[in-house]
């Protein structure tokens, strides 16, 4: 069983990642051009002549065949040039790079919230001897599993934005607060530069979308972890620990939790990638300037280069998350650690 696991892992995974990304590029490129919806139709003024339309079409290269278009696009893409957004007249990579930090901060915050809530409730319900606590957690979990992120988002807006106006319902930061930051990671940089006003305002904007994204994930984490904790608790080593006089709290925190986290983490990784899908709707609801919101604008405007770039970025994020999950297995599981 002593396969040199990690020695092989990164190269194999990276190669697979490249192949996957290429597949995503081909499929999305073809699909985008086959499905109805003409970007030129969105741009022209009502009085444009057929010749004007033809000229415009040719200037974007859309009069060529799909394979030729793809080869041209790929030739530029490998150099990092993903073209110019049709609707916003800006470089696609520049647009995405400007929006990505907002989404990164939002999803990471949501992930932290989901992990804390999920692991916390799973451990609590494992430890609690009272039937009432267990039943309360179990039922709460059922509700969280059933309600999707956008319903939470709308509920939060109604509760904390309209009925009880304590949180801002749109945007990322109050425009009156000046930031002279080097990056667009406003939260991270605000923390590093110790700017409580900025951090506080950004968090106030993020808290509702982050919780909307986090609650469904927290429910999944809790459900899986609780099952894994119960299974580990029946293992001989946990029984032995009990006989050795360790309390249930210690057995759970020091013996079983670590082993139970391994399957939970695998699932969290997969579910975390789904959360990026969730950002598309949730960011829209809160007018949060991330790539999810950008994606909706791009689709509405049939902005082919921008959609194409966004699909690739989403694909890359999925792949990176999965690599990170694999790497963290080795941290938790000593059986994968030694080469």
């Amino acid at each position, binding site marked *: *069983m002593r396969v040199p696991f990690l020695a092989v892992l990164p190269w194999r995974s990276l190669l697979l990642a490249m192949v996957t990304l290429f597949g995503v590029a081909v499929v999305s490129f073809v699909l985008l051009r086959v499905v109805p919806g003409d970007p030129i139709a969105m741009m022209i003024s009502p009085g444009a002549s057929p010749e004007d339309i033809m000229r415009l079409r040719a200037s974007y290269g859309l009069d060529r065949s799909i394979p030729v278009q793809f080869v041209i696009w790929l030739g530029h893409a490998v150099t990092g040039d993903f073209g110019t957004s049709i609707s916003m007249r800006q470089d696609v990579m520049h647009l995405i790079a400007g929006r990505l930090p907002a989404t990164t901060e939002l999803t990471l915050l949501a992930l932290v919230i989901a992990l804390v809530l999920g692991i916390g409730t799973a451990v609590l319900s494992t430890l609690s001897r009272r039937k009432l606590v267990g039943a309360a957690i179990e039922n709460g979990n059922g509700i969280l599993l059933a309600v999707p992120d956008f319903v939470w988002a709308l509920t939060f807006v109604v509760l904390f934005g309209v009925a009880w106006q304590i949180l801002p319902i749109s945007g990322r930061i109050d425009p009156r607060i000046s930031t002279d930051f080097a990056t667009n990671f406003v939260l991270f940089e605000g923390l590093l530069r110790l700017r409580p006003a900025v951090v506080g305002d950004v968090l106030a904007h993020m808290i509702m979308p982050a919780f909307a994204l986090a609650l469904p994930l927290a429910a999944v984490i809790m459900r899986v972890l609780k099952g894994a904790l119960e299974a580990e608790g*029946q*293992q*001989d*080593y946990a*029984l*032995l*620990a*009990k*006989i*050795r*006089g*360790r309390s249930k709290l210690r057995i759970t925190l020091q*013996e079983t939790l*670590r*082993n139970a986290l391994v399957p939970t983490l695998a699932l969290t990784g997969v579910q975390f990638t789904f959360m990026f899908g969730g950002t598309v709707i949730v960011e829209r609801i809160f007018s949060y300037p991330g790539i999810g919101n950008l994606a909706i604008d791009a689709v509405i405007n049939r902005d082919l280069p921008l959609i194409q770039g966004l699909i690739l970025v989403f694909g890359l994020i999925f792949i990176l998350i999965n690599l990170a999950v694999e790497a963290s297995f080795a941290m*938790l*599981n*000593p*059986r994968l650690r*030694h080469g």
Partner: protein
Amino acid sequence: MSAPLLEISGLSARLRRPPHSPLLRSVSLTVAAGEVHGLVGESGAGKSTIGKAILDILPDAIELCGGTIRFAGEDLTTMPAARLRKLLGTEIALIPQDPMTALNPSRQVGSQLTDGLRLRRGLKGAALKQKAIELLRDVQIADPERVLALYPHEISGGMRQRILIAAAFSLDPKLIIADEPTTALDVTVQKEVLRMIRNMQKIHGTGVVFVTHDLGVVAQVCDRLTVLYGGMVVEQGETAAILASPSHGYTRALIDATPRHDRAGTGMQPIPAGIVADLKAQLSRYGFGPSGHV
């Protein structure tokens, strides 16, 4: 005569949920200090249930429904939880069945071996390490210092079982429950491990409840034995006497079903159906009826 180390009397257990299938039916047995007492029977005979009941690790689905388990005169089944927790691990220890699952895969062997010494005796640092090395020497592990820093997946099954034996004896308990300690091991390793348990037990003067389905193992290590069938005691007494002339047909059948090297050619005999039918009839006379477990 002083009180025996362990005295189980009239112990009954059943499934917690209806139809409350009985698992133990009024089992009584005693284990003297320094005695190795075998619990023998087929799967489902209740031998492991007895071991788990003593250690208070019965699965949630099983409940005790009568009888007492007296350890040095004190009833474990009615003892306050705090007192029981103190006894378990220090005075009563377990050698588990499967060394593959009985060590936590994500903790080093050494820290698991010394849990008891650390938590119960407050040993630490160099003294703890010294004691750990001694323990591993006792179970004949070469290069103990290296082994302490390994993870369970890095050592063999026989070695894991020896570490678990060392851990069980580490606090010098008065009673050890050995739950099929050699079943999961290679035949070649089995003998060695049995001899080790026997030696350690003699040196420490420990009483042992030895759960097994293997009469060959019983003949090697047990002073006395209890034969169980369907949660009921079938026969009890000195090992040598019972193996030489079993008084119950079921015991006879079990002996015939055990492969023996000194009887080459005769082969193993299946347990005749008549005896089991007879036991079943006996069980229904106890009033357990058709819902019984057999």
